[in-house]
């Protein structure tokens, strides 16, 4: 009990200094938690998103990025080949699609068009979506996601001008589903192809029969048809996670600066406190305290600062992450930040490690003092 009392009372007797140090660790940990929570959130959001996707295989032109299909390059001949192979490979649906972005990548101003072949409605690609107004069937017109409608004040019967010649009516508005579909404008493939002057498709989405393996079909397709790559949602998730790992490292690097500053703060506080208490340590040693006792005492003080600052930092970081979530949820319909248990544990471990490293040198210094010098008994 006296050890904890000694540590806590010492921290309390220099309350302003202790508080500032605590604040330093708090800010460092909170910054790290907030930075890292983006990666965790993005990875989680994409995982959920891909889980909501009906077709589990995406066919793209060879060499294109799995995340952003560019200009339509898949010819009707490729579609024909896939359709021919479909019965033999156990494919249920083959859905060619044309993708088009208008207005850059700002979610607030851009329009993301997803083309669908006639007879296919958005619920085939995004199972579970329902119409809030109108219906899901395109019938040559447009069905829009809930957030698209909200952001652009569109409703049933609104007119979408794709070009001076091409106008579409909104015939359906989707219910908010918390998926990518909220941000999309579904139109017939033909309309987008006319707009771009091509007969090609951006991607071909494929749903296997329930009994078939996506992986096997994707492999068979890639081998059978030259110039294409077939990917499963699992592949896509792996790709995304790989890309995120690099950005995680980068964000950790940035937060490392904050962590190092926090660590130096703790080291400074503990070192100052050691110098101020040299006589106390001398007295303890004279009375019969071992060096290891003094070492533990000082290290524990630093660890307590680290643990307390880390826990509070985690709390503040989590609140920050919730704020970011609230913002991105309102703007793009996706919670992009998440403090997962593994991130929380990682942050606490880092804060404790900080305390340990920062306290080691002062603890060593304090434990090696000679009684005679510490008590000024020369």
């Amino acid at each position, binding site marked *: *009990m*006296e*050890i904890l*009392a*000694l540590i806590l*009372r*010492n921290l309390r*007797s220099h309350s302003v200094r202790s508080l500032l140090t605590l604040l330093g660790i708090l800010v460092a940990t909170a910054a790290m938690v907030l930075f890292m929570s983006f990666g965790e959130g993005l990875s989680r959001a994409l995982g959920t998103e891909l889980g909501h996707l009906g077709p589990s295989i995406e066919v793209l032109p060879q060499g294109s990025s799995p995340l952003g299909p560019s200009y339509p390059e898949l010819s009707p001949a490729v579609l024909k080949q896939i359709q021919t192979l479909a019965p033999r490979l156990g494919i249920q649906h083959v859905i060619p699609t044309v993708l088009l972005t208008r207005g850059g990548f700002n979610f607030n101003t851009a329009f993301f068009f997803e083309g669908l072949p006639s007879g296919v409605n958005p619920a085939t690609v995004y199972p579970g979506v329902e119409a809030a107004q109108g219906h899901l069937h395109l019938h040559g017109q447009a069905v829009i996601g809930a957030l698209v409608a909200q952001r652009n004040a569109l409703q049933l019967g609104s007119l979408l001008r794709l070009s001076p010649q091409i106008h579409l009516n909104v015939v359906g508005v989707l219910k908010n589903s918390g998926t990518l579909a909220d941000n999309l404008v579904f139109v017939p493939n033909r309309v987008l192809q006319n707009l771009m002057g091509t007969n090609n498709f951006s991607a071909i989405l494929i749903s296997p029969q329930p009994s078939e393996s996506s992986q096997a079909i994707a492999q068979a397709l890639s081998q059978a048809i030259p110039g294409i790559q077939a990917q499963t949602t699992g592949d896509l998730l792996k790709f995304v996670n790989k890309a995120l790992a690099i950005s995680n490292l980068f964000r950790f690097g940035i937060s490392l600066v904050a962590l190092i500053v926090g660590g130096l703060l703790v080291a400074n506080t503990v070192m100052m406190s050691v110098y101020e208490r040299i*006589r*106390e340590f*001398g*007295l*303890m*040693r*004279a*009375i*019969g*305290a*071992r*060096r*290891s*006792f003094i070492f533990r005492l000082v290290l524990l003080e630093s660890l307590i600062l680290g643990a307390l600052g880390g826990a509070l930092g985690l709390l503040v970081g989590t609140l920050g992450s919730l704020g970011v979530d609230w913002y991105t949820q309102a703007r793009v319909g996706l919670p992009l930040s998440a403090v997962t248990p593994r991130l929380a544990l990682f942050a606490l471990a880092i804060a404790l490690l900080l305390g340990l490293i920062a306290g080691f040198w002062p603890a060593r210094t304090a434990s090696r003092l*000679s*009684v*005679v010098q510490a*008590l000024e*008994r*020369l």
Partner: protein
Amino acid sequence: MNPVLEARQLTRRYLQGESEIVALRNFSQRFEVGQVTAIVGPSGSGKTTLLNLLAGFDLPSEGEVLLKTQERTVSLSRLSEEERADLRLHTMGFVFQQWNLLPTLSAWENVAFPMMLAGVSYRERRARAQALLEAVGLPHRAHHLPSRLSGGEQQRVALARALALDPLFLFADEPTGNLDSASGSQVMDLLLRQAERERGVILVTHDLQLARMAHRLLYLRDGQLTGEEESKRLNPR
């Protein structure tokens, strides 16, 4: 055999810049339990150096300090830092002139501190600390921080702490140096009482009047023992 703390041919030299200073030279003496020994001399005579060596705070350049008990004889120079700390904890108690108490601990916690180091249970050290504070006349000050105690009270708390693990030898370095005469003689009485309990008391002071209350006086000058005297006022055992 009664426990004895024995100094044999102790010499302590320091280097100060280029020159060498001999703080203590060829000091030999036996300190027995049941006896108060006062070491007197002007400042710079080597009193503190001698106490540092006897307590194992410091090691001699030559000679050795032996602690002889019924069970064993140990030479302090042959022990590691940690072993010397353990030896001090269990066989020695200390009262200094200043820096005596841990400022963030209350009076009873200060008294209980050595017991905590020795692994005594919380309940027991709580009870023993209270009993010791009663013995030095401060039961009502148990929960006060040192900053709330007078100089005399602080010294009495320090004495209670020095007695916490009932050590064989009690070292007191100018224990009444900062006190008025009433508080001083109160502390001195408590010290003398320890000798009656078969404990050895080694008192370092430059106050000759105080020293004359001891059973034996050792005079130090320039690091050397210059005289020895049995006190007439008290009857040695």
